[in-house]
């Protein structure tokens, strides 16, 4: 019985030998490339995804690069003309013109490498702007580079889901003026605009600023109030025929969304799943005392939209509040 196993020994040995052979990958040739996705947040229409595409050659010169997305990007999609290096004296990243003839046609972006005699190893930036047509779809990218020797190497990115969220930044609200917010439109209107454009059924939030409120003159400040809340809107002359939906409003002070904030340094992002799964059980129909970097999860009374309203800035003197919104259509 045991002797039947003997013929297997050379087979196993051969398999082990073959399995231990070092694999030869294109990246170990004279022309190499690598890819890093710099953007950590979700791919949202209105923002971009940034890649760093590193290329280098030991033979000949770098000639041109190509990136092909599975879905065409919006305006601005393509290779950046500049690569960046850190100035050792100042520690500041500085741009250096490295690519020319950058162009994007449909899903394909190309560029030629400049100063090929010295640019033997460079890192190019590629920006991809998701479009409204690509919301909810997956996108991936294939980057490639060719050299003067005719060689070509490429690298395939993973697949990324384009967010279904809509985003609008820097909406300036003004007490008694642009105070009526429609989440469907992601726009603030004045009382006159609401009346003239028959928007009375589309208003979900009213912005007010009251330094103090109540019999005890308690601090109140900047507030978002649903039209349903008669207490906080009793001194406001609302647009004629304004519907009174009870928009659910849940204040947050620690959700500093980097995309809504518009600055680096905060790696916190509202994503589709946050707006899909946030529950609004027993939440208020107002949020008051709002300050910069705070915000509120909101859900329209008809359940059509969930959103995060982020406060970029407040101005007590001008009675204004600047907000940015990420919004997801739920049904």
């Amino acid at each position, binding site marked *: 019985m045991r002797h039947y196993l003997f013929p297997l020994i050379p087979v196993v040995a051969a398999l082990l030998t073959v399995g231990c052979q070092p694999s030869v990958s294109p990246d170990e040739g004279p022309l190499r490339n690598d890819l890093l996705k710099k953007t950590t947040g979700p791919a949202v229409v209105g923002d971009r995804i940034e890649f760093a595409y590193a290329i280098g050659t030991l033979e000949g010169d770098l000639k041109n690069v190509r990136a092909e997305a599975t879905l065409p990007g919006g305006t601005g999609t393509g290779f950046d003309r500049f690569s960046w290096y850190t100035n050792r004296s100042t520690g500041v990243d500085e741009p250096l013109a490295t690519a020319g003839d950058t162009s994007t046609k449909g899903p394909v972006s190309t560029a030629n490498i400049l100063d090929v005699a010295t640019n033997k190893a460079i890192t190019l930036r590629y920006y991809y702007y998701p479009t409204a047509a690509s919301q909810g779809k997956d996108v991936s990218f294939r980057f490639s580079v060719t050299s003067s020797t005719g060689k070509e190497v490429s690298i395939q990115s993973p697949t990324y889901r384009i967010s279904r969220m809509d985003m609008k930044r820097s909406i300036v609200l003004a007490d008694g003026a642009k105070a009526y917010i429609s989440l469907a439109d992601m726009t603030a209107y004045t009382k006159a605009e609401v009346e003239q454009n028959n928007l009375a059924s589309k208003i979900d939030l009213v912005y007010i600023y009251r330094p103090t*409120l*109540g*019999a*005890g003159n*308690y*601090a*109140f400040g900047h507030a978002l109030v649903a039209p349903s809340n008669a207490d906080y809107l009793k001194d406001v002359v609302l647009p004629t025929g304004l519907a009174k939906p009870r928009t659910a409003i*849940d*204040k*947050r*002070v*620690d959700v500093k969304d980097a995309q809504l904030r518009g600055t680096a340094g905060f790696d916190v992002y509202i994503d589709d799943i946050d707006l899909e799964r946030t529950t609004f*059980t*027993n*939440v*208020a129909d*107002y949020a*008051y*005392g709002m300050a910069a970097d*705070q915000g509120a999860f909101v859900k329209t009374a008809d359940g059509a939209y969930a959103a995060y309203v982020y406060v970029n800035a407040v101005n007590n003197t001008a009675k204004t509040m600047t907000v940015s919104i990420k919004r997801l259509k739920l049904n």
Partner: protein
Amino acid sequence: MNQSLFSKLLCLLAITGLLSCGNDPIDDTGLLITGRSQCYVTFFDLLGSDHRTVLVSGQTKIDTTALTVTAVARFGTNMQRVKPYCSVVTDAIVEPTMGIWTDFRQPQKYTVVSGNRQVRKTYTVTVTLQQ
């Protein structure tokens, strides 16, 4: 002779060690039941949806004789959705569990159970809203 004595001491130590590893009693939630019979609240707070306190500073009163906690919530607090939490004397627990969104428009009752689980005191927590 010395080696024999050392062996006996070693056995004694092992037996003592084994006995000391006996199962301490724990309750249904896996918390240790101890010998403490003290049973009272030492601190109470209430958080809003932004996870910041909604209580007016200096207005919270804990009466361990009358078994009441009274506090004042700031003007504008949504009393339907607040999250209570408290501190209790060492080893005591609170039933039902605090730290969940609770409607505090009406007084709520919480029972403090002592470390030995023999003493139970039910506190009534009343939070009024600044008007």
